């Protein structure tokens, strides 16, 4: 006879305890950011878009070999300069549609020429803008720049 009544009151109590938790959280500060107005700085080794410091590149093709999704393309030619043979990059492009942002190219690079910058707002209106990004062009991410918080700083590692 008394058990159902006891169960009923304990059940009601459990609901009230749950409501205590939510009212406590109602008065605690929010944990989210007011996103487009306030932005969180990216972590130091955040893996954003692939970027290149062209003078540092030694054309070793390591990044091309390691890339799991074949998102990078590199070609070079040999030119003679002051009677010395020298390799020169003819084309170095990056396909952001294929890239899986694993950061392996950054790790294999012997001269830290290729790195992943801190861009994370990389949406564009057309696929074509991402299919073949010319890494040699210093203004390659210009159309994304004004939406990026902190400018890419090469990773010291």
């Amino acid at each position: 006879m008394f058990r159902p009544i006891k169960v009923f009151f304990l059940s009601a109590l459990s609901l009230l305890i749950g409501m205590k938790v939510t009212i406590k959280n109602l008065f605690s500060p929010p944990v989210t950011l007011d996103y487009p107005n306030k932005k969180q700085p990216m972590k130091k080794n955040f893996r954003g878009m692939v970027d290149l410091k062209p003078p540092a590149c030694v054309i070793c093709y390591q990044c091309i070999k390691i890339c799991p999704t074949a998102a990078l393309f590199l070609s070079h030619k040999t030119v003679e300069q002051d009677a010395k043979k020298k390799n020169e990059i003819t084309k170095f492009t990056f396909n952001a549609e294929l890239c899986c942002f694993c950061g392996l190219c950054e790790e294999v690079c012997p001269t830290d020429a290729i790195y992943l910058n801190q861009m994370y707002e990389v949406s564009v209106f057309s696929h074509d803008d991402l299919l073949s990004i010319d890494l040699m062009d210093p203004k390659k991410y210009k159309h994304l720049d004004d939406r990026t918080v902190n400018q890419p700083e090469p990773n010291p590692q």
Partner: protein
Amino acid sequence: MEQVEQNKSPELRSEELVVNMGPQHPSTHGVLYLELRLDGEIVVDCRPHLGYLHRSIEKIAENRTYIQFVPFTDRLDYLASMNNNLGYVLAVEKLLGLPVNERVQYIRTIIVELNRVGSHLVSIGTFAQDLGAYATPLFYCFRDREKIVELFDELCGSRLTYNYMRIGGVQNDLPPGVDKIIKDFIQYERKKLDEYNELLTYNAIFLSRTKKVGILSKETAINYGVTGPCLRATGFKWDLRKEEPYLIYDRFKFDIPVGTMGDSWDRYKVRLEEIQESLKIIEQAIGAVPEGNPVAKVNKVYKPAAGEVYLRTENPRGELGFYIVSDGTTKPYRNKIRSPSFSNLSVLPELIRGLNVSDAVCVLGSIDIVMGEIDR
């Protein structure tokens, strides 16, 4: 089913209602498609249809070198990427006979257990969401998981697909001051687990929705190859971390939480308790990390001798196995992945037959599948 039989009189006929639940449905956890046959609201039969997220990862593995495949394992069980990384890397290391140093072992243990906590938090949150607790427990769980994700972000530069484990080591060393962050997190999370208990675990409505719903017996679970929390909820004490200790799990003291009935509530409770145990392991490991260099070089080409290896690890969702066959070249001849969610999902029709639609959603949520590793 008996009800359907009764209705089969010649003049009065009733039809089963076929409802296509998914691939776009709020609570099928991705792109699962369940073909439900309903008698009123009672599920008479259920057929899961798979393949909406198939990316042929196993075939991709045959065309990638051993190192290149690590980022693809992130995409299997995307809530527990670190655990997938670990399973694959351990398998390759076993194939190569490559030893790793102590610091690597400790770092891997800590990171993997943290990821287990994060994965279980998502599982608890989405389960509550499936039961109709409008997003509040989900947001609390994601709020707490955020701390783990932030730490991983600092550690490896990514928030979901970590690609952190390397053959013979890890990608980066632990950042300075990580001990304190993790210890603070453990303290914080223990407090929050009490909050979950108050909000959800012993809530009368939650109990009435989950208790004795979708009871999985020990025999059925073993027959279907169900592993992980779903198996342990049936009362069967089976955890690879204890049974076949890999990494350095044999050095830590922790319990294996088991359920009593194998119902939805038990599966939920086992996950909640596993978070506690994982926190215990992290607490023991974080104080004992030895010195050393854990970073592995990636530009090395691995050429294992012809042979095969099968290695299984305890993922948050169950037993993850990698079966790798090498033909002596730089790429594996075959890479078969045994994913826990696939076996766990296969038992679903057995569980929800005879329940109504609300309970079917509840059982599906309690099994906690991730479509990424079912379809591979």
